[in-house]
């Protein structure tokens, strides 16, 4: 168990990177605190696996340092770092039984045989693998194989951290849910740091104490799930977190105030900003329907999608801008009808050149 610090850590797969473009992971300073659960969230190809492989030592970073509890481990080997990692696709030792698969990490580290069988029993029970322990591992289905991979990651109880690289992709949704809960339970019981890589925001939000959002090799924002939701630091995070993504509206600048014609909002505080393109962002969850007769903006319903409890309504504002509203009200909504839309001023976020002011 350790606090993991990335100090100006970056990596380029090119031997002589010419520009920042060449970096799969742009140099970053980041601290993974001991004992927390983290989610590393970002679109595919943004450098998540690269970051994990650097932490586990499978990849030597081209720039910067990696510290475990303040000790520099940049040049330490993977096995010295004592990290557990689970890959996206199951990796099993096809020539071994399920039991030997699970005990292998402990055998490699010369654990006492009694302790090994104890740990294997605990982990296999938790993952419901206990009745197939003596089967050859190659006979299993893909999701059982992934459970073995997961089990091998969890069987050591002294690891510095458990790195999970989209491990739940191949597992069916029901099982996914209970596994996520179990992982959190393990974290609470043992205090093992866990980093879960995912591109599924709901998985990230429900699993992690803190979410780190990445894009194009750069860390965009890290924080508690509700922070990312309420105050996304840039429009990318706004888009990526929350479903549907944040609505962006054009604004007119009137002195030191802003007007938003689409929502008929006037007199928004502009802040002390320099020049730069301004936009406001409003979460679909924060927009409310109101009576069209009041002094609110009026928009026309273009489509209405029913998600069971919520509805996603696509609307076109009087000035032609499109946006979405997430509503739980049970009122009848017809396509083509006109609805009033309102928002609380505190929920309006102002972005300058895509960055939250």
């Amino acid at each position, binding site marked *: 168990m350790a606090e993991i610090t990335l100090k100006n850590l970056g990596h380029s797969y090119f031997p002589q990177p010419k520009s920042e473009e060449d970096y799969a992971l742009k140099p970053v300073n980041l601290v993974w605190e001991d004992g927390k659960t983290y989610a590393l969230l970002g679109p595919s190809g943004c450098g998540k696996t690269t970051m994990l492989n650097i932490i586990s030592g499978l990849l030597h970073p081209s720039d910067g340092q990696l510290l475990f509890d303040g000790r520099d481990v940049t040049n330490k*080997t993977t096995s010295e770092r004592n990290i557990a990692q689970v890959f996206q696709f199951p990796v099993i*030792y096809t020539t071994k039984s399920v039991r030997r698969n699970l005990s292998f990490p402990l055998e490699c580290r010369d654990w006492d045989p009694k302790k090994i069988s104890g740990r294997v029993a605990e982990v296999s029970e938790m993952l419901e693998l206990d009745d197939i322990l003596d089967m050859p591992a190659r006979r299993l289905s*893909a999701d059982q194989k992934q459970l073995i991979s997961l089990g091998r990651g969890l069987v050591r109880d002294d690891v510095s951290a458990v790195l999970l690289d989209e491990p739940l992709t191949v597992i069916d949704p029901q099982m996914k849910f209970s596994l996520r809960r179990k992982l959190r339970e393990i974290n609470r019981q043992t205090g093992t740091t866990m980093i879960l890589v995912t591109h599924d925001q709901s998985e990230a939000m429900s699993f992690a104490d803190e979410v780190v959002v990445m894009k194009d090799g750069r860390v965009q924002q890290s924080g508690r799930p509700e922070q990312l939701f309420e105050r996304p630091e840039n429009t990318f995070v706004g888009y990526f977190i929350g479903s549907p993504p944040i609505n962006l509206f054009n604004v007119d600048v009137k002195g030191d105030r802003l007007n938003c014609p689409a929502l008929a909002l006037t007199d928004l505080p502009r802040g002390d900003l320099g020049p730069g393109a301004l936009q406001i962002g409003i979460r679909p969850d924060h927009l409310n329907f109101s009576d069209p007769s009041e002094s609110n903006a009026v928009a026309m319903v273009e489509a209405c999608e029913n998600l069971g409890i919520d509805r996603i309504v696509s609307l076109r504002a009087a000035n032609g801008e499109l946006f979405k509203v997430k509503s739980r009200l049970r009122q009848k909504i017809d396509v083509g009808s006109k609805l009033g839309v309102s928002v609380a001023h505190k929920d309006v976020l102002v972005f300058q050149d895509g960055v939250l002011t």
Partner: protein
Amino acid sequence: MGRTYNIIKYLCLLAWATFVVFPFLWALSTSFKDANAVTSGARYIPWVEFEPSVQGWTSLFASGSQGINIVQPFFNSASVTLLASIVSLGLGTLAAYGLSRFSYKAGFVKNSDITFFFISQRIMPPIVLAIPFFLMLKEIQALDTIFGLVIVYVALLLPIAVWVMTDFFASIPKELDEMAMIDGCTPIGAFFRVVLPNSTAGLVVAGMFCLIFGWNDFFFAFILTFTETQLLPVAIVSLNSSVTPWWSLSAFALISVTPLALIAIVVERFMSRGSLAGAFR
């Protein structure tokens, strides 16, 4: 419908099997013929069409003017082939693993160039190598010895082993090695404890190729040995005289093909047990 299909299927298989087995049958019947029976037209059925004789077989175990003794050449061939195959497979597997998992660079030479260098050894016509090999073995006084032949055969078989195993290791996801290292192996430990046990299929194929090429080589065995260390393919040449002894040649052909056939049967059994079906994911 299904029945007609089955009948046709088995007829086709039968035809094919006859086609494949026929040369062996012919060799078998010829090995029991005498000069008369060989030269007087096609005859197939012993006792009816010709009177069988074991002369073809006994002449291979005789000594002096009765024929030649192939027992010693047989064991020479077996030792050279086995030793050279084991060494080639060992060295070749290590080289192939290195080539498949690490990037080497020396000037403009990269991994693919190194692999090609190995393979190019087999593209060259063997005659080009004959004289250098001869001179080198002479220098270390290894002409006409098993040791000398093993060295030469390793040079011939190593490219095959490297080629087959490089291809095979490329098909094993590198995540397997990475996983082993996460689980606490050193890079070498990952190779021996995880990758190698998963490589039986590749090792069997590469080993088969080595055995076949080694066992069948005539050219180098002919040039680099004289009298002391005769290999099987060379020994048979000395059988030839003014009258070609087809019966001995046939018996010899059957004897020399037997070890390879036995290996093929064992490997086939082994493969069909499914233990080689390499599902890594």
